[in-house]
């Protein structure tokens, strides 16, 4: 089947199998390998991207469901010369170690900040409970989200 979608501002029309997952479309068809797969049960959140501005786990969305949608991945939010405030905060606060959960964590954190008022540490922890990190113990991730939040307003 053909799927037409906008990814990081560029429109793509792709021929994919009907059971293709959005994450596979991104990783295998578009070679956007910044979005990772960490589990097969929608538990870890490493594959989180934005679909029409809201975070989704791209392992749980069929490519077909993204037909006509705007997708933003980690590659689409900033560049080394022009980091998104959340990216910059993750670096500043040492909120990443191995980097594998980081793209999904950043994409979830951006949506969390955009959809919440008055985040505090507890609210950040609850808001990110769908994204697993095995390296950082989350402490510095909470710091980073709260650092980026005012810069995103």
């Amino acid at each position: 089947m053909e799927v037409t979608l906008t990814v990081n501002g560029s429109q793509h029309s792709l021929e994919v199998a009907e059971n293709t997952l959005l994450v596979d479309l991104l990783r295998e068809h578009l070679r956007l390998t910044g979005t990772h797969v960490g589990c097969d049960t929608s538990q870890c959140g490493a594959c989180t991207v934005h679909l029409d501005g809201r975070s989704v786990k791209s392992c749980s969305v069929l490519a077909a469901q993204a037909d006509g949608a705007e997708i933003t991945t980690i590659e689409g939010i900033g560049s080394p010369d022009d980091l998104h405030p959340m990216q910059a905060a993750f670096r500043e606060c040492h909120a990443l170690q191995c980097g594998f959960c980081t793209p999904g964590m950043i994409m979830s954190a951006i949506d969390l900040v955009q959809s919440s008022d008055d985040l505090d540490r507890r609210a950040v922890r609850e808001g990110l409970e769908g994204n697993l990190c095995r390296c950082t113990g989350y402490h510095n991730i909470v710091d980073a989200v709260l650092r980026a939040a005012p810069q995103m307003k």
Partner: protein
Amino acid sequence: MAEAIESGIGAPVRRKEDMRFITGEGRYTDDFSQRGQVYAAFLRSPYARARLDSVDASEALAMEGVLAVLTGQDMAADGFGDLPCGWTVKQKDGSDMVTAAHPPLAHSIVNYAGEPYGLVVASSVAVARRAAERVITEFTELDAVVNPALAMDSEDIHAGVVGNLCYDWELGDASATDAALAAAAHVTRLDLTNNRLIPNAMEPRAALGIYDPGTGEHTLYTTSQNPHLERLVLSAFVKVAPEHKLRVIAPDVGGGFGSKIFVYPEETAVIWAARKLRRPVKWTAERGESFLADAHGRDHVTHAQLGLDEQGRFVALKVQTTANLGAYLSLFGSSVPTYLYGTLLAGQYKTPNIHVEVHGVYTNTAPVDAYRGAGRPEATYVVERIVEIAARELGMDPVELRRRNMIQPADFPYQTPVALVYDTGDYEASLDKALQLIDYAGFPARRAAAAVAGKRRGIGLSCYIEACGLAPSKLAISLGAGVGLYESGEVRVNPTGSVTVFTGTHSHGQGHETTFAQVVAARLGVDIDDVELVHGDTGRVEFGLGTYGSRSLSVGGSAIVGALEKVIAKGRRIAAHMLETDVENIDFEEGQFRLRDSNRALSFGEVAFAAYVPADYPEDLEPGLSEKAFYDPENFTYPAGTHIAEVEVDVETGVVALVNLVAVDDFGILINPLIVHGQVHGGLAQGAGQALLEQAVYDEYGQLQTGSLMDYCIPRADDLPDFLVDTTVTPCTHNPLGAKGCGEAGAIGSPAAIMNALTDALGVNDISMPATSEKIWRALSG
């Protein structure tokens, strides 16, 4: 020199590697693809123990897109060897441990649920997985041995391994310990289990095998913490390919925690299949495969006795442990419950008599090997739980009891009764700082306030020690290690003065690209951005033993220091010639080769350029400015510290909240405190996971009941508190950086602290890890 200060030793430099990770430009094994690549799916045993009678692949082979179905029989026929264990443990009676063959792919018997016995290779992952389901395998199911405590009384799993006993090992003086216990004024007894854990690095294991028929070169991209060791094992033991025809690349690796040290069946099979099929073959584990077939950790059953005299001084510690090794010995599975466990049972204390006996047993479960801490969390859990319980039994303040028994700064170097010689430390300094950070004095008031709110609050300590930077090679090899424990470092100064550094350690989250660059930049006086670290590729780095046991900085960093000193020595000779003086008159400081007592100097860059464009150059010196060094530590390093946990239990529901977790650690000299604190945070999270949430559960048939992230609970952001971490410093006395290692401490110290806090809150001693709400509720409900 503001730049130098900002990036110098001890500066919290923001990580160089982060830029690629935060922009999605990291390159992990599964991100690499080759033209013509095909995909593997493994055939895995559904039984914990069974005879493999026949494999009928005809239906699978008929499917469109299926290239091959390869089995353990095929691999054996191709002359492949078994996966080795890298440490031969000597038993009590002096004989070698009893091992069982571990073929990479099972060919006649399967010994754990999930064990691979073949693979399907197909044009896509989906086809490979569908085809794997169409392979019809006949098994004869056999009775499985699952419970390690019963293993020695069960049917033998492996021919020739009587009573499933791999080894009966001991350390320390048994009769002196027994005598001291018999004479002790008080003996505290403790039975405990150290729960079996599944590491769960967020990046699943993966492998991409490539074979070049023109050159005969094999290239294996894989998720490894130690690519050179992987190459050595695959070449020397498994006979995949000669070492010079095998390149192993471990690119960005998404966490390891020990689980990616070992050489696994899957990568072995992938490189084999690539050669057989003349196609690049890729495999990436599903999380379910990680649960079934990554090496698990811990899994001890222990009885311990601590004897004390009338003054509360420890007189003897006797420990008997049954350690579950799983179905086969993983690469270092034998050493973890012995040399990395028994040797740590002195803890921070002057216990004069210690004896430990360990039965390492085979069971029909996944192999068990090093997981963050590896033996040392198990030792700490025994020591710090029994010390706490002894204090309760004697009605003593647990802090005071510990103080009374601690090794004091004046006692170093301190020979323990269990082989190790601690070089330095100041245990009360860490203890005092931790007590202050958690406001220990204010705890009774917090407990009273919690009681008013219907909650039970408890506090618990753990004063741990670990042995890191495993060493020295000669000693380890004499104790059965099959490899050395040194590390290599190379410093290649480029003609323009920038520096490329090569290390045999591997970074999979630890930030070596930054920390090591800080070491190099500080010593050479160059900008940190002019230093690049290369690691993780046997084609680029000469040799190395990888990253495990918190060794990278203390051992790998020390090797780099050795190479730096050689570079500087050569630079001084070049500078002496250019400045027309003797080498003795040249000092090197802050990036300048200076003629002593003069204002004449050459910059590091000028000397580097002269080394490669030797217009005016010493006749007796080779051109170039590139040096290598190997560093073999003369002793272990001994990070130590105090962790204190405070918990609050809801009596109605059994829900436990970890409200405070403090860690004060002595890692020696810190290069980058930002990274060090991050390492501690991660370790604390895994320690909290072990104490409260995580456990691998097999049923009586050997089926893994916790085979997904829905059944096995790793900590989420809302399960954990903010951490309070700090450090004290006694520099390591025997390596040039004074560094001890920080990677594992968090996971070593914290479980005992949390369980001591929880049992303090509940007023019972025998809650087992993980202390789930259900367990606590049942304990409270009597």
